[in-house]
């Protein structure tokens, strides 16, 4: 029981990070029907920017940890958004309206560009960051045949889960209540009609990339804090997992992306905890296949209705 609870907490933490990245995939897919394969690498860039900012702030002699964390979060969101905007502007917008495969290939190309850029400028070795937030609370303790086992909720995990929750709520409000969110939904359904009603479609699409990149930056920063090491290649696997999460939840659906992210995180952690660590990815992807066989549009996705 204690073991189960502990795994649940770990799974939710990991799932939050996947969920934040998955939102970027699902929003871009929703609005222009494109899989932005470079999004995982935007996440990686975000974590590098966060590391650089963190070290710079420490070097400047700022010692209050909450302040450092807050500034790092803002700075990495800002700069990663700029990256997301630039990638869209340079690599995707000129190809919009071209044949369907062109943006996909470009996205893969962009992914390689970002990886290699970081590899060359930052080096291929892993970058460590010593654990910054330590300690936690013990929720319960139990006795098993192997000794005592404690259910720990670390402060790090609390921060990750709370931040994700806050961002999710804020984001859902933005999409459902503000004029920007409304025009994003309008562009999702009919770009030309939205344009004729005075919505600047190009800008709306750009802002979608910016928002996705900002969330990926948050995920990147949390990944850095949680694991303490990053390298230029972390975007690939995290990106694939988050993409899987978006598909699992129903691509195009925001709550779906979050749910998918949490599920992928939980499956991975539980599989590693109860069966084998080696096969955790196999388990995650197998679940994806099974869900898609029975629910082709994902858990919360809307089936595409053929208009008659």
């Amino acid at each position: 029981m204690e073991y189960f609870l502990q795994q649940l907490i770990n799974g939710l933490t990991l799932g939050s990070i996947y969920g934040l990245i998955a939102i970027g995939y699902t929003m871009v897919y929703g609005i222009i029907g494109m899989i932005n394969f470079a999004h995982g690498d935007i996440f990686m860039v975000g974590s590098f920017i966060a590391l650089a900012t963190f070290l710079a702030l420490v070097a400047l002699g700022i010692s209050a940890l909450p302040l450092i964390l807050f500034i790092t979060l803002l700075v990495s969101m800002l700069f990663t958004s700029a990256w997301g905007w630039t990638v869209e502007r340079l690599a995707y917008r000129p190809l919009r309206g071209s044949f369907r495969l062109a943006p996909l290939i470009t996205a893969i190309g962009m992914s390689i560009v970002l990886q290699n850029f970081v590899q060359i400028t930052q080096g291929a070795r892993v970058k460590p960051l010593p654990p910054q937030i330590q300690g936690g609370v013990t929720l319960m303790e139990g006795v098993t045949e192997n000794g005592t086992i404690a259910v720990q909720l670390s402060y790090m995990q609390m921060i990750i889960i709370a931040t994700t929750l806050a961002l999710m709520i804020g984001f859902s409000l933005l999409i459902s209540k503000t004029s920007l969110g409304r025009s994003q939904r309008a562009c999702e359904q009919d770009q030309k009609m939205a344009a004729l009603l005075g919505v600047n479609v190009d800008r709306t699409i750009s802002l979608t990339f910016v928002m996705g990149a900002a969330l990926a930056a948050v995920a990147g920063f949390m990944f850095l804090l949680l694991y303490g090491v990053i390298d230029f290649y972390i975007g690939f696997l995290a990106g694939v997992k988050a993409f899987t999460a978006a598909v699992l939840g129903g691509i195009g659906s925001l709550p779906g992306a979050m749910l998918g992210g949490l599920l992928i995180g939980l499956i991975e952690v539980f599989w590693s905890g109860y069966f084998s660590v080696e096969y955790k990815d196999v388990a995650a992807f197998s679940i994806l296949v099974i869900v898609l066989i029975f629910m082709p549009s994902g858990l919360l996705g809307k089936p595409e209705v053929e208009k008659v």
Partner: protein
Amino acid sequence: METAMKTPPAHTWDDNAVLSVEHLTMRFGGLVAVNDLSFNVGRGDITALIGPNGAGKTTVFNCVTGFYKPTEGRIVMRHGTGLQSEKIEALTRTGRQFNDDGDDRVFLLERMPDFEISKRAKVARTFQNIRLFGGMTALENLLVAQHNPLMLASSMTIGGILNLPSYRKARAEAIDFAAYWLEKTGLIHRADDPAADLPYGDQRRLEIARAMCTRPQLLCLDEPAAGLNPRESTELNQLLQYIRKDHGTSILLIEHDMGVVMEISDHVVVLDYGEKISDGDPDHVKNDPKVISAYLGVDEDEVAEVEEALDMPVIHGKTDPAENGEGGRS
């Protein structure tokens, strides 16, 4: 039927045009969809653009609303009264999209991107096929149309997220304006229903309401009466008359239903094979042999014979929903 004879020879569209299409030509590869077309839309008039299927009516709409960039020609939108010819010539020479004349601006629509035509030049349009945002509620559809004032009030969304008073006020106004048009179109009780769930006739009216929420000076309607039953068609006529009278919005419509055209329009422009064959008030057009021949598909000189044979001097329009200029030619 018209009873009183029309005495004033001066037409609104000659000396106070809100829109002027000048020498418009649109070619798609080798196909000339519209050829050297010129006509005016009078301020405060209901102008009908008619013609047989494939005459190029929807192409004209697509050029006016920025869907297509015309191959040749100029499309002028005026916010101030009068023809303002000198101003327009001066603007044309500058290469700019519109001049800085406060509320009396003139716009060269062929130079503007589509969203700017709605946002600045204040031209709204509907399509032959319904293009509502089906997944959004009726009210939200009307709020999307007020995107620009809302974005301005929310200082690009930041105020919206923080729910500042200025944004709350703008939002309340937008909702009031939307409610006004829902009331006018008889849809207020469906405000919170997804647009796709409304019956066909309601959807058509919702499209007009949405177009009006952009506060247009010119409303372009592509076959608004298509698929409506006689009662709905009458209601539509009343709605259009109301829009023109109480909001001073000029209306340009494509319509196949000659009953609607003859009843509500002040001015009729007839196209055939991408060229203008007649232009005038409904009476003039109705009796123009060129128009009759175009609709009956015979030579001009045979019109009299055909008319005699049919004993029917009035044109009967046909509504053919299969015609779709915009889809078929893009």
